[in-house]
């Protein structure tokens, strides 16, 4: 269900792992904020929410971590070329239109 071995080309496409990570992260963020409030008020629900938020964060990392590593590794090889292109644009050496 969750793919954890990625080739660079596969990792470059948008897949359900990306969407799942984004959706779970939103929930984790909300749980952290609410959990912190109630944990500071020493309400048991606060610690439950905070713990769940942190656990969700770990789950997100497990889901999308390998894919991010694959995307990042492949992209870093091309970055120097892109930065060079950017410098040509800012100096008007590369302009279309």
């Amino acid at each position, binding site marked *: 269900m969750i793919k954890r071995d990625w*080739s660079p080309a596969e990792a470059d496409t948008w897949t359900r792992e990306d969407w799942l990570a984004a959706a779970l992260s*939103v929930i984790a963020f909300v749980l952290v*904020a609410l959990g*912190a409030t109630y944990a*500071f008020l020493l309400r048991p629900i606060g610690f439950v929410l905070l713990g769940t938020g942190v656990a969700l964060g770990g789950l997100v990392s497990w889901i999308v971590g390998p894919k*991010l590593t694959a995307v990042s590794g492949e992209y*870093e090889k091309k970055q120097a070329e892109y930065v060079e292109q950017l410098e040509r644009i800012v100096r008007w050496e590369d302009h279309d239109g």
Partner: protein
Amino acid sequence: MIQLAPLDWLWLSLFLILMIGTGVAFYRLARRSEADFFLAGRRLPWWLPAVSVYATHTATDTPIFVTGVVFLHGVSGIWYTIFPVWVAVSAFTSTRIFRRSVAYTIAEWQNLRFSGIRAEMLRGWFAGWQFFMSMFVLGWVGAAMGKITTILFGWPGWIGIVGFSTICAVYVLAAGYWGVVVADFQQGIIAFLLILFVSIWALLAAGGPAAVVERIGRMNSSYTWAVPSDLPPSSDYMLKIEARVVEAGVPRMRSATAGPFTVALGQDDGADPERPSFADMYAEKEGLEVLFPTTGDVLRPGRKYKVLWTPLPDTEALSLHLSRDRGASWAVVADRLRNGQAWRLSPFAFTGYVSGDFPLAWFLTMLVMATLGGLGVGTNSDWFVEAQRIQSARTLKEASFVMLGGGASVLLRNGMWVAAGLGLFSLMPQYAETARVETAWYEAGFRYLPVGMVGLFVAGIVAIHLSTVSTRLNLGAMYATRDLYHHYVKPDASERELVWVGRVSTAILLLGSFVYGMMITEITQWLIFAMWIMFAGVWLPNILQVVWWRFNAWGYLSAWISSLVFSWLVVWVLPLFGVIPRLPDFVQFWVLLVLGTLVFLPFTLLTPPENMDHLVRFYVMTRPIGFWGPVKAEALRRGLLPGEAGP
């Protein structure tokens, strides 16, 4: 008024020396190139810019804002601070796309996403606008610092506005972004610890967390009533609370009246909100009774007061009524009032679907704005700060962590502040004017922290202030240098020259911010305007530029121009002249979104798409999300996406 002891001054001085020392230490790294001065050479590990995100978004006006919304809405006020959830979506979508573009700024991104003269117009506009916005933000946080130092120390406002920003400018001028992130790292840790300590102390001063919850749970009911400024002076006013109470399964109407009381013009504030009967809100009385105002009280037109009455169990509906003729006739002032104060402990204490001061529709609008906005680039004002941190991360993966780490720590901090705000509310629930309680968190720090920590607290406040100021100084200077000077004025400028232009731009921003700081008085008003309105009309275009290949520069330009016009018209001008009523902010957002769409969509569809060569290059470089079918097909046809199957 706070008096600092010599030991306090020592803490503060050591802190400032540390910050300036940082600037000196990183001077040599920053002067090497434009990329070093503004992006730290794109070589930072994720945790440095992540702490910088946290530190930057912890400004002097943030506890003022958070305390204000918690006093108004209780725990539900946390939703006003939950907007950073946009980074949770962005970290896995738009952050990756923007990082791949390697653009220094969102202005530079325009040159990559769009082509031709339209892209240049957009780049120029973004650069100028962000330079101005940085000056504006610097002015407004400076004004907040001026307000704080005036209240706490009695210093003239200009010292808060000018003094600390000038100190901050020393290390920003010397070390650029290197100085910003390294100082932010120290400031972020100091600020986080102090927020933690002061929040704990505030809760302890309120009797401890359990006592706060228990006290709020048995407080009387209240409604903040703004006495109309046109209410004629008279001593015949009365108020009535009406309630539908269910007794043994049978609903019955109950009511209680107050007065007669007087509404009269005068020099003072009228009835004292701190008088013992009002401050002691813990009802032991049975039945419905209005506790404030009472017979003989004098209220002033145009001022806010908390109408106070005893809570009733099993109440279905509560409403407040005003009589101008000693009870002969009544007019509804407000309905759907809340019973007691226990609702403040719930995060979902909405006042209705669309009605009241905290409707469900507002909450849903904010969630949509934040989460879907995470797909776009530049969908809110924080994006411009985050963009610099995204590009300074050493890898694409670490850029995602920058966003996640920074956003999560901001929300953790907000949670602490909300709890502390609730504790402070339980100590001083009587104030109806938000201005009176906005600085309560700061005051609690000075009042309750033990001797020897006050100086550290001042250093923490200064840290909060400096982190925001340093970021905005360097960010604004980056737009001026990279996008205006380097691109338009002198494209062949040397690296050394560009670093110096960055420094001069920083100095100009600093001076401009002093002028703005002296002008801005209503912090909250500007904050809400900037957060909601300036981005409402371009929120959707900012997403479309990432997710829809057909969206073009003409559509984007028209959206920006129409947004500027519509936002001022809908928010300020038309209500001022009575053409439309003053709309709630969430309604303003949707109105501006619809009006903007009616302009940019025809412009987009009636003008040609961007140059396909340009789009293919952008696609291969950034791999955007969404509807890019024709561009992807063309990239595949040209063999630019090895390893991927055709459509």
